[in-house]
């Protein structure tokens, strides 16, 4: 049982509901840890490593409609979105064009620490729906994402302050900040 069980169990799981690629990665990780470390997720090959700075853990992902679609169709007809990932620098500014911006996500890419994210209230005007804790301080555990569907209001240029700090005990303290500039067309 000691030798066969991981294989049998992992194969049994292939019949379950994981997407095919996720299953492959998981299976690789169980059956051959050294092979699993060669996938693009290898920390040594990571383009944007997570450091002791909380801002290094946060990813900003934007969703825009496919050519020919609109945000209205993307959100209310569940059409696919073109996703783009962005990183921010402490004290810096990240400018995102507001035109055709359907969705903004904030994701914690740290593998072992939670982060707390607090977004300026200004974004609430554009949010069709949002977890209200985002504007007070929302804790994202590792790999957790919060998503905000956006309405296309003519607000000109909107500057939204984003505070990020580690939320796990023992992690370095201190708040880091960047400005998210949503630029109208």
């Amino acid at each position: 049982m000691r030798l066969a069980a991981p294989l049998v169990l992992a194969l049994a799981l292939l019949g379950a509901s994981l997407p095919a690629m996720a299953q492959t990665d998981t299976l690789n990780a169980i059956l051959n840890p050294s092979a699993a470390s060669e996938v693009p997720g290898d920390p040594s090959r990571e383009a944007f490593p997570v450091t002791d700075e909380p801002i290094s853990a946060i990813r900003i992902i934007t969703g825009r409609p496919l050519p020919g679609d609109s945000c209205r169709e993307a959100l209310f007809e569940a059409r696919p979105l073109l996703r783009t990932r962005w990183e921010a620098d402490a004290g810096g500014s990240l400018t995102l064009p507001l035109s055709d911006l359907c969705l903004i996500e904030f994701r914690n890419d740290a593998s072992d620490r939670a982060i707390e994210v607090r977004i300026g209230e200004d974004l609430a005007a554009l949010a069709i729906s949002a977890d209200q804790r985002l504007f007070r301080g929302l804790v994202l555990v590792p790999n957790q994402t919060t998503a905000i569907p956006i309405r296309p209001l003519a607000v000109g240029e909107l500057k939204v302050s984003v505070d990020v700090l580690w939320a796990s005990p023992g992690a370095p303290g201190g708040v880091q900040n960047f400005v998210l500039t949503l630029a109208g067309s």
Partner: protein
Amino acid sequence: MGVVKPVAATVSDPPPSPSPNADSARGPTVAVLVPTTGSVAVVASLEEKPHLGRSTVTGVGDFRAFPIEKDYHRLVDGPLRALGGSAHHTHLTLTARVEDGRSWELPILIAHRAVQHGARLVADVATADLVIFATGSVDGALNPIGHAEFLTQKITNAAPLLATMKPGARALLILGPPAAATDLATLEAAAHSIPGSLTATLSRFDELDHLLSERIGAPPAPPSPPVPGRVLWGLGIAVAVILVAGAIGFGVSTLLSKDPVPRGNPFDMMAIEQLHAPDRDACIDAQMAGYGLATQRLVRHADGFHVPASPTTCALRFVNTGTEPIEISLDNGFAGSVIRGDTPIGRPLRLINGTSYELVFRRAPLGRESVVTVAAPGRVGRLPITFAAGE
């Protein structure tokens, strides 16, 4: 109603025999897995610590509390103690960090009850007579609740540990309700690869205790010491003192404070509003442009909330009308009918007092029903939200 399903053993099988080197008078060795999406923790120890100011959770050999400490303290010093758990604060030690969420509640409850049933907890799965894998949360009466989240991932994470089970050891794979068909299939697929394993879905605390009685042994009856005459005198005096102190305390507390522990139905702390428009296009126009929508508060009936088919429902707004945060969650009844974004479907969404959350529909889920769970400190309530069928 809970279901216990034997996979490669029968329910009437005897409890596992204690390890040869175990103290047979103290029951079998049990390893309780606490699966998370990132890893699997094992309960290393549960120790009564009367000197602690509160119950705590740490890693092995560490003193820093995990983020779940506050809720663990509430669990131990609240419903667990009310149902006969330890009278002292407890130090729970886990082999890996548990950060957040509520799926640790069911396995930790099981660890506490397993000890009550005479089990000896071990962190090394390879030495355990019985290995328990469970995921889910519990309500204020310790009844398992909540949909199992990321079950496949959790079982995959646990697979290497389960593979180290010694020959003859048994595994119990437990979920709370509502267990989706895919979750049950996943659970049973995993169980089929582990000889001597059982799967169980439990909806009530007494079902859990019954299962542990079968697999570990019955909990000892509470001791009933003899009561000699001298003790009776002492008892009478003690009762009189307690009554006087209680009367004084009641008067003082009435003067100094209102009831600090809220009582009653958690739905008294939440209102549901229907945001509506004449038709779907008008709904979408308003959502995209940020226009206000007509709003109507839904009446709470004994059988839940009823949403009419007309006018068209654009969104449901959940409003925390209480004085403290609550958590709301919905089962999968409305899945696929809402727009992208954070939703309480399948995972609790914390709603701070004074705030609201809008569940925005792509199209109104006519003819469908979803059960909303509202959790306030010490209380949990569930009611269905039912959309009338369209024409």
